[in-house]
């Protein structure tokens, strides 16, 4: 299958000077590992220098020891840039990217609900995915989370009419 524009790793590395080096992981995808503190700068460069205007997805992975956030972006050139960020498991905090990419507000809110990652500066991090009376600080998509039968997770009690 022919892939779209030749999207070389070194073009991305040039744009990401001093943040991280581009590493080609697929025919049209280059991944850059970036320190968590400078993620906004990396995203801004991707959007401006590499002309990526469409945020495909913010993928989240719980590797057991750390959380990984993958910001996938693409643009008219049809190449994909993935910004990879690692967060410590105990207090995962990162700057919210909704200023640079408005749809990010959306994805971040979902990640906060299911993984418990804090997004500083997010306009409205209210609970939304899980039901209203789901216990606080229970993040179901974490690897170490198991459903504790003793605990009540909300939803209507068993009063059958």
């Amino acid at each position, binding site marked *: 299958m022919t892939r779209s524009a030749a999207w070389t790793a070194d073009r991305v590395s040039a744009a990401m000077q001093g943040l991280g080096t581009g590493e080609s992981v697929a025919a049209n995808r280059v991944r850059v590992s970036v320190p968590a503190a400078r993620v906004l700068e990396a995203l801004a460069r991707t959007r401006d220098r590499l002309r990526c205007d469409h945020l495909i997805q913010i993928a989240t992975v719980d590797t057991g020891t750390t959380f990984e956030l993958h910001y996938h972006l693409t643009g008219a050139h049809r190449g994909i840039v993935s910004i990879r960020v690692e967060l410590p498991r105990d207090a995962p905090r990162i700057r919210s990217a909704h200023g640079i990419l408005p749809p990010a507000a959306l994805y971040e809110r979902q990640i906060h609900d299911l993984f418990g990652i804090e997004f500083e500066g997010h306009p409205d991090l209210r609970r939304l995915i899980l039901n209203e009376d789901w216990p606080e600080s229970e993040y179901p998509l974490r690897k170490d989370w198991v459903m504790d039968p003793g605990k009540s997770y909300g*939803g209507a009690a068993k009063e059958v009419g």
Partner: protein
Amino acid sequence: MSLSRRLVAWARGKSPWIFLFNSGACNACDIEILAAITPRFDVERLGILAKGSPRHADILIVTGPVTRKQAARLRRVYDQMPEPKYVIATGACGANGGVFQGLYHVLGGADQVVPVDIYIAGCPPRPDEIIDGIAKCVALIKADARRDGRVTRRSGPAPPQEAVG
């Protein structure tokens, strides 16, 4: 049996209005129920109308496993319906949560929250199977109306009822 009770039984059997409630389904059942309303299956010839408000409906058709967030709302909609009201749980999800059984945000079948009268098997059941389910529910309605109370429910496959009047 007095004439008026027979007339009411006939009327209730002839005009079962349904109310569709999606309690967290993958919307395959919802689309098949809607397909039952459209020209090829056309349930209006049986007097079945899909109504917008629970107040106007006789049969509540619940699709999907009851997710935690939707459970309270399913209960409220059920309480809003006027008597005599009936519940049809559609598909495998309606029975016990189907393929989503045991997931953290899923309570299980519709019977976790509301009393269910008829279960329709299938994932999703075809429109003609849904119409068959409604027909069996109509038979139940007529039996209840004739007894002027609720006929005892048997949990098991629906008995081969006589020709649905």
